[in-house]
């Protein structure tokens, strides 16, 4: 498209616009649908960005943290704990290793047993909290060494429940992207239908314009401009409402779990602003295709 045509499309030609009669109700429907689609797109986008963030966060946090559990008879427990801590201190890649105190272990169990049960009297295994540094440690090697020297130690690096969580977050992000693509496709289909309806309803106008020597491109532009601007306006309104909706969601917090993390962060707030221009682009392409096809069929 030439620069002149693009400028004409954006700035418009007030007189050329009047050539096609105004269509109140259809125009409002187009506005409404593109607004609703943009609104949904904002949420799909928020979901995709939040689940991506969650996947990365979980993968990173869980990769670093591990728990060492020492199951030993009461008289050997202290000795084995000391031995295990010694091994952990020598292991490259382990940043800190700390045995949990009796009170901390009791606090962890409180949700299950209640505060009144004397947890301290139970033969509990000793827990050691292990935090890896950025480089990480060799879990398999550590496991083998512990097996030889501290028979009661079981290393849990959380892989078992980390992998499905990260997979779930990735799947959620994929679903969100598929939704965004579907929303785009549905918008294109809807605009194509509306443009075809408008072209059919204005068949007489098109005939008169052809009769007085209008080029197909001139006629098409009158329709393309209309639908592009409607999609742009509708999508802008939808995005504003969608962003307000996302903004009103509670702040991310530990108590709320992952649900409250839905939303945009930092530069992420700028991404939904791409939806209106993209919606306009979709409408432009859909109307251009519909108009070219329709006008080509006329004599």
């Amino acid at each position, binding site marked *: 498209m030439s620069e002149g045509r693009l400028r004409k499309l954006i700035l418009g030609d007030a007189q050329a616009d*009047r*050539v096609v009669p105004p269509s109140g109700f259809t125009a409002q429907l187009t506005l409404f649908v593109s607004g609703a689609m943009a609104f949904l797109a904002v949420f799909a986008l928020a979901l995709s960005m939040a689940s991506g963030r969650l996947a990365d966060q979980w993968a990173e946090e869980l990769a670093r943290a591990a728990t060492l559990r020492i199951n030993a008879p009461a008289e050997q427990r202290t000795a084995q704990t000391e031995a295990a801590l010694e091994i952990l201190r020598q292991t490259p890649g382990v940043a800190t290793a700390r045995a949990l105190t009796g009170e901390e272990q009791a606090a962890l169990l409180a949700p299950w047993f209640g505060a009144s049960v004397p947890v301290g009297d139970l033969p509990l295994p000793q827990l050691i909290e292990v935090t890896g540094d950025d480089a990480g440690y060799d879990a398999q090697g550590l496991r083998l060494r512990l097996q030889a020297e501290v028979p009661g130690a079981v290393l849990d690096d959380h892989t078992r429940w980390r992998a499905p969580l990260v997979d779930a977050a990735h799947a959620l992000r994929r679903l969100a992207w598929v939704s965004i693509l579907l929303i785009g496709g549905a918008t294109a289909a809807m605009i194509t239908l509306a443009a075809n309806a408008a072209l059919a309803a204005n068949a007489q106008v098109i005939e*008169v*314009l052809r009769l*007085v*020597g*209008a*080029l197909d491109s*001139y006629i098409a532009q009158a329709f393309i401009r209309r639908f592009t601007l409607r999609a742009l306006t509708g999508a802008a309104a939808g995005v504003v409402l969608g962003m307000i909706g996302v903004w009103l969601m509670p702040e991310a917090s530990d108590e709320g779990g992952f649900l409250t993390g839905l939303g945009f962060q930092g530069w992420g707030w700028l991404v939904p602003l791409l939806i209106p221009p993209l919606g306009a682009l979709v409408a432009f392409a859909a109307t251009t295709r519909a108009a070219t096809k329709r006008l080509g069929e006329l004599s």
Partner: protein
Amino acid sequence: MIELENVGYNYGGGELLNAVSVQLAPGSFHFLTGPSGAGKTTLLKLCYGALNPTAGRVRAFNMDVHGLDRDQMAYLRRRVGVVHQDCRFLDHLPVIENIALPLLVSGRELSHEEANLQELLNWVGLSERAHALPPELSGGERQRAALARSVILSPDVIIADEPTGNVDWEMSQRLLQLLVELNRMGKTILVATHDLSLIRAAKNQVQARVLRISNRQLQLAGADL
């Protein structure tokens, strides 16, 4: 200007025109007559490319009309002013904008043409009605507006299909007068009509030739009118 060479037209149900050959020379004035349904409108449509002949060739401005693409066809329409039988206006725009429509779609700057437009409105006697909508016009006013629209781009050829079909004798005289004036300015005119008295009236003012469609053929009907 426009040349038909052995043109035949078959609309599927049968042959309407057969071996029609005619030349519209620059500056000529032709009437096209014949009974209803004889193919007058079809022949006019063949001349301005709204229909393609099923046999023979149509040449306009030395171009084969059949080979033109849609854009070239649009440019051809700008050089041939057509007054349609039922006028064909954009009913949501006032008369003045309908008359200016060819200027608008061909990308002319309307503000430069303001004076021409006013003059043209005066010439067809529609200055008072400039801002009326087409459905509010009388039959004669519609025909005059259609004529004004057909000449606004100053085409070389003007084709009118029954321009006096719905108007009284006085109004048809006035329309004829306008066509005669255009012919004196050097325009090539082709008018389809079944109104023989109109043709007789024209013969007093202009060197008009009469073409008659009869039995699917085109004949030059000369002095017998």
